[in-house]
Structure formats: C-alpha cells, structure tokens
C-alpha cells in the first residue's frame, strides 16, 4: 500500500472545475445550436447592411427559383417571390421582425409568469388568487385572443405581442409554480428558515436559484413555440401588415404558388424550423451546464 492510498481519499485536492462557458463549449450539439443562433441573430440585426436588395422593391423577375435550381440566377440567391422581390432580403428583414416579436413576448410574459408562479409557491396564501388568475388567462387561446386584439386595436405588431404575452404568462406561472412547489417541500427551505433567513433571501437564494435552470429550459422551449404562434398569426393575416416581411407571412404568401414555386413557402418555413430547433437544443444545453448536479 502506498502512502497516498493510506490517506483519506477526500484529503487529496480535487481537480479544478471548468467555468460554465467552457463546459458549454465542450458540448458539440449545443455549440452548433449556439453558433446557428448567433449567426441568425447577427444576420437579423445586420439586415439593412447584409440584404442585397430593398426587401420591398420589385425586380420584375417574378417567382425566380433559387440559384441552385435549373432556371435560377446568381443575382437572386434564394429566388424571388410572386411580386418579384428578393427572397433573401425579405428573409433577413422577416427574421428580424419574427425574432423581435418572439423575444419581447418571452421576456415580458416569461418574467411576469415565472415571478407569479414562484410567488404562488412561496406564499401559500397567495396561491389560490394567482392560480385563478392564471386559469382565466389560460382559457384564452393565443390565436383567438390575437384575433380579438387585432379587431380592437387594429392590425400591427403590438396586438400580436400582447396576445403572446398573455398566453405565456399562465403557462410560465403554472410551470414555475410546479417547479417551485417541489423545491419548497425540500428540507433545505426549512433549514434556511431555521437559520433565520428573511423571506427575500429565502426566495432568491434558496427558491429562485434552484428553480431558475428548470424555468430557463422551459422558456427556451416556449420561445420556439412563440415564434411558431407568431408565424401562425401572421400566416392567418394578423400581425405584420404587407408589404412588411415576416417569416410566417412569407410562408403564407407562398401557399398559393406551392405547386409550381414551392421555394417561396418552403424557405421561410425551414428557417422557422431551424430557429426553433436551435433554441430548443441551446436551452437544453444551458440547463446541463447551469445545474451543478448534472456535472461530471
């Protein structure tokens, strides 16, 4: 037996733990999803500089297929739409609007909803009130609410964002409450009380800190859903008003020409798919690196 073996194993110093971003970069799928997301966000943000054409100007070349197709032209990499507008340019501007709608509604709705849910779990006497409020909101389907809001406020981005926020709040509240209830039952909450911690610290350090990663993963999944709902709303003709470009609306416009010019509908749809998928994978990876229990 060597000297090292006779010492308590715990007495040897542990290897240094990697910082969270280094661990994130080690996960291949997550890395790819992140790169894709960053690229899409950057492209959307830089749309005015990246777009080769004015997204609203017609080129007289109508329904041109993408460059790789037989009749395609290198001048219009992704082809043109029925009005002869460059699809690549419209895609860049459309992504910008879609992401903006998705992000603003997930931020406002997610924050409000999660906070309400955590509060309901933390203070049992608030629970029935918050949950009845969330039940009321839950009974309003996002698409119907969007229709109603558009009727009341007129067509535009605001009613869509409002409808998405309202539909996100009860979902987030329910999920956050469920996560928080599980945490509140654990003994360390009582241990914190026994130490004499004031409610505010118990809420942030014990409850929020343990709930945040599960809530984050839900929000990232929900972000994908919101993009889909936003796209569906503009597919139905709500939200963005033509000629403004928005991914869902672009897909809707391509619907009529699907048989002889499928690229008009398919290209924005594929982009929606990529954004949603990347957001989900990145959210999953984020949870893995944020949860100390899942680390090896």
């Amino acid at each position, binding site marked *: 037996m060597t000297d090292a073996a006779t010492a308590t194993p*715990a*007495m040897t*110093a*542990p290897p240094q733990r990697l910082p969270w971003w280094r661990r994130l970069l080690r996960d291949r799928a997550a890395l790819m999803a992140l790169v894709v997301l960053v690229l899409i966000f950057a492209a959307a943000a830089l749309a005015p500089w990246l777009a080769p054409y004015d997204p609203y100007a017609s080129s007289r070349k109508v329904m041109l297929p993408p460059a790789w197709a037989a009749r395609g032209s290198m001048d219009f990499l992704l082809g043109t739409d029925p009005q002869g507008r460059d699809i690549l340019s419209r895609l860049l501007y459309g992504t910008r609007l879609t992401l903006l709608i998705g992000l603003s509604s997930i931020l406002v709705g997610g924050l409000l909803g999660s906070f309400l849910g955590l509060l309901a779990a933390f203070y049992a006497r608030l629970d029935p009130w918050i949950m009845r409020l969330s039940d009321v909101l839950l009974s309003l389907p996002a698409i119907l609410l969007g229709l109603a809001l558009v009727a009341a406020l007129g067509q535009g981005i605001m009613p869509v964002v409002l409808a998405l926020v309202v539909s996100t709040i009860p979902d987030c509240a329910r999920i956050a409450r469920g996560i928080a209830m599980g945490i509140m039952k*654990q*003994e*360390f909450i*009582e*241990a*914190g*009380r*026994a*130490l*004499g*911690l*004031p409610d505010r*610290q118990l809420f942030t*350090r*014990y409850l929020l*800190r*343990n709930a945040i990663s599960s809530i984050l993963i839900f929000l990232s999944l929900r972000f994908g859903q919101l993009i889909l709902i936003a796209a569906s709303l503009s597919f139905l003709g709500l939200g963005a008003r033509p000629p403004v470009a928005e991914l869902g609306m672009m897909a809707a416009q391509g619907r009529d020409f699907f048989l002889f010019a499928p690229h008009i509908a398919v290209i924005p749809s594929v982009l929606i798919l990529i954004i949603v998928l990347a957001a989900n994978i990145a959210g999953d990876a984020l949870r893995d690196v944020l949860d*100390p*229990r899942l680390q090896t």
Partner: protein
Amino acid sequence: MKPPVLEAMNLSKHYPVHKGILNRQIGAVQAVSDVNFRLMEGETLAIVGESGCGKSTLGRALLRLSEPTAGNVLLDGKDITTLPPGQLRDKRREMQMVFQDPFGSLNPRMTVRETLLEPIILHKVATGAAAEAMVSDLLKTVGLSDFHAGRYPHEFSGGQRQRICIARALATKPRIIVCDEPVSALDVSVQAQIVNLLQDLQRQFGLSYVFISHDLAVVRHIADRVAVMYLGRIVEMGDAETIFRDPRHPYTRALVAAAPKPVPGAALPDRAVKGDMPSALNPPSGCAFHTRCPIARDICARDRPDLRETAGKQVACHFPDEAATIPASVAAPMSGVLQQRLAVLDRRRAAQG
C-alpha cells in the same frame, strides 16, 4: 440553580383537518399535546418514540418552524412563542437545528463556503476575512478540510454532508441544537462517527441537545435524559440510566424490549406491542396506550393518567408498579453450536493478542 436553557410549557401542536366544498374543519390531528420539559445547560435530552408519535413535530414547534397551537417555549426563561418575526430571527442564533436527511437539508446550489458563510453574515457573527477564517475553522471542527469549501453538496457522502449540516448549525455559536434523527439516514459506522462528533462538540462548546430519535441504541449512548412519546404525549421521562434499567410505562418497556440487543442468541419478544398506533386524528379515550397495553383495565380507558413521580422518574401510567413486572426482554439460552463458535473466535483473538 441555573434556569433551564429551554423549557416547554404545555406545548401543543394540532393540525386542523378540513373537508368538503365548504372547507369545514372536521377535526384536528393532535400531533403534540401538553408537552412539558426542561433542558439544562450542557445536557442531552432524547425524545424517543415510534414513527408518527409527534417527536419531529415537537422539534419543529420548539424552534417555531411550525407555530405551536398552544403552550409556550421559554429560551433562558424568556417566552419566544409570542415574539414577532424580526426578534425571533435574532433568537434563532441561539438555537439551531440538524435535520434527518443530509441529502435534502443543504441548498444544492450553494457551495459549502456559501452555506457556512450565510449564517455567519446573517447574524453578524463575523465579517470579511474573519468570516472566511471562521468557515475554515468550522470545517476543521467537524473534520473536513479547507478545500471542501469550494464544493457543492452533491459531491459529498451522507456522513460528510451531515458534518456540513452540523458545521452550519455551529456557525452562529448557538447554545441549543435540536437534532432531528441526525443519524438515522446514515450507515451504522458513519452513525458512530457523527454521534461521537456531536458529543465532542457538546463538551467543547457546552451545547445542549434535544436529540430526536427512534434508535434506542444511539439514545442510550448519547442521552443524559430521555422522554418517551406516545401519540403526541410524553408517557415517561427521566434519567437515561433509570429509563433503560427500569422502565415503568408499559410502552417504554415494550420499546426497550423491541430494541435489538448486541447479544448473540438473544430472542426478541414474540410481539412487543400488539396492533398499530391509533390515529392522532381520533386518539383513544383515557390513556392513549390502553388499546395496546397488556395490563390495561377499565380505568385506563376512562381517565388519562398524568405524569407522576415514580421510581425516580416521571411516568404517566395508572399502574407503574405492575408495569415493572412485564418482561422487558426475553433471555434465550445460547445454542451449543453458537457457544462453540464464539469460543473459537475468543481463542483466535487471544492468540493474536
């Protein structure tokens, strides 16, 4: 004589039970009823009883982790049952708790350092570099090392975690620690380490323990005094030595008899206590134990016996002298084969010297 550091006076905790759409109260679970005891400085008072007898509820009510329904808790002779939350928080510095589940009672998102710093900063025991030094001292006190401070609870074994919990309880320099089954989730070998650690700390810091346990072997080892609980009430209380040597309540006798003994070949009584514990929602009339008691008579179902001074301890039984005749253990003769084997082992041990 010094006043007791902690005193419970007629402490009760009842949980109301609601039913129906009108949410009417249909009864109450009487988890703890009329408990009285005094805890002296440097003393260990063990509270024993089977699962569901209210011993954990009692521990929580003592610290006001759940508000007592009636009665008072006195800390150094001052009532803490009516303190407003702010002042109660200050008093928590004096009384800490160690929980049963070392896996659940540490915040998984806080490193050991954060966990230990929290009470130190909160109760202004120390600040800055002094607080950091204290964390390192605490870790040493409970037998851990400095480099453990940067780790998260899930990186430790059960015994190590319980050491961290003990360190956290010590951080505010309390005088009383309520230990709620602190070793029942641990291996027997680790149990011994933790119990010894608790005893060392008691000598070192003059701590008083309320030691809640169902494990009579551990209690016998650590306790100065023992209170036996049955269905929310103390049925027998006295020095550990006399309780174990000469239990006078039929329930205590049954408990002592049911505890495994480190004697090879010793048989357990066929059935120590018959039946299950009655519901605390609807406790039996009179003496709560009369439904299972081997010496119960008519009076037992009618009148509840109070705790009375008997044979050097307090017993709540109408017939404590008769109870003393119930066999507390059954001695069985060792079989011949076992005796031979033990003899072989003894010779070996002697040969190895």
